[in-house]
């Protein structure tokens, strides 16, 4: 592919600007993705943290879910953080809310508790040599994975990072730290 990688950040609600800033620093063309047209024109997509029910509502109302599924089916890499992880999951514990259902995993929302239980911790990630600092905010975790999905990191026995081929999801927020390692990891998949 010629020129810069064109990475979209789903800009419906949440911390999309923070992802765009990291991507720009890494030399990508970081684009807000808000319409079908936007999704058509990107090489990879990040679904940011925010509220998964809000993002789901807008994915339905503005008919973006199908085009994302289609492009991901054709091999477009997608990276979901926190709410993005929830939106990517096939199963959500105790909820029938809208999801893209692209990844073979079951997630539990707000699984570590309410906001006062939100925390920071260093994590060990499979295939990455040094620890990565994780910021967990009303975070989900993955209760099980199957098929091609593979757990890459755990915290206290809970799965907090999963990869399935060209799809990646974290419970925590790499976009809130200065460390660009996980974004670089995702870009290597694009």
């Amino acid at each position: 592919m010629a020129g810069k990688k064109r990475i979209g950040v789903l800009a419906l609600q949440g911390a999309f600007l923070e992802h765009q800033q990291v991507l720009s620093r890494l030399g990508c063309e970081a684009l807000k993705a808000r319409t079908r047209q936007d999704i058509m024109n990107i090489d990879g997509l990040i679904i940011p943290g925010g509220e998964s029910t809000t993002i789901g509502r807008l994915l339905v109302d503005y008919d973006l879910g199908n085009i994302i599924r289609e492009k991901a089916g054709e091999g477009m890499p997608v990276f979901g953080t926190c709410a993005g992880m929830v939106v990517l999951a096939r199963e959500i514990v105790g909820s029938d809310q809208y999801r893209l259902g692209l990844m073979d995993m079951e997630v539990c929302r707000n699984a570590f508790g309410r906001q006062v239980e939100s925390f920071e911790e260093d994590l060990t990630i499979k295939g990455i040599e040094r620890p990565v600092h994780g910021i967990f905010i009303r975070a989900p975790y993955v209760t099980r994975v199957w098929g091609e999905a593979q757990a890459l990191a755990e915290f206290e026995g809970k799965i907090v990072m999963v990869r399935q081929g060209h799809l990646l999801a974290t419970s925590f927020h790499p976009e809130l730290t200065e460390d660009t390692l996980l974004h670089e990891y995702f870009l290597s998949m694009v």
Partner: protein
Amino acid sequence: MAEKGTFAVKSGLAQMLKGGVIMDVTTPEQAKIAEEAGACAVMALERVPADIRAAGGVARMADPTVILRIMEAVTIPVMAKCRIGHFVEAQILEALGIDYIDESEVLTPADEKFHVDKHAFKVPFVCGARNLGEALRRIGEGAAMIRTKGEPGTGNVVEAVRHMRQVMAEIRRLTTLPKDELMTAAKEMQAPYELVVEVAKAGKLPVVNFAAGGIATPADAALMMQLGADGNFVGSGIFKSKDPMKRARAIVAATTYFDDAQVLAEISKDLGEAMPGIEIRTLAPEERMQERGW
């Protein structure tokens, strides 16, 4: 050992709320409507600001029963208000497990000189501000999120516009000042010097800044976003209107597609009657909630 209640997780939740709408609700049913409509959080209250204004008297923290029922009804974050300076109401709200506390001028102040020391809490706080000095004093006290005060319960956006423009203009001015003028700037705006230096360098507040106080239509919500708000609080505007679900969904969409006039035109159709509004000039000075806070 995992660290809880750090400023990164407190201000981080506000970052996750960006581009969203936080709606005032008084019952679990309203909370469910708000969640279904796409609210990114709800504010649990006994009465919306328009009713507080109408009722008069002393407005206090809501009954914990009301707050807990709303917390049980939805999966999105739940906020609640404490009175300015009433740190015990804040302690109670933290003990209930609330996700965010609004130290709010909508309630009757409990202290006419001091605000709550918000650094002392694990739960994050949002506070209202009419200008940059006020915003930075609240951040200095530990607020992890700022919002305009506007004039709550009026359905009139003019004061929120005034406050957002004021904060943005003061930030722009700071970025043009040489470093040796920043101490005097801090003195004039009665703001902590370190935060003034930080804003001058970054060209923005160190925390998320929402609009609040008088937003009643999708156009109001988009206006505040175009003026630089990170998201919107809508108080009386939704559940005092004729068709709350439809209006709530439209305001959520307007906050996302704030710069797309075609979408805004579409979602503004057939919303039914908005809440009745109040002209600000008809309010006596003692009825202006925005004057509360120091």
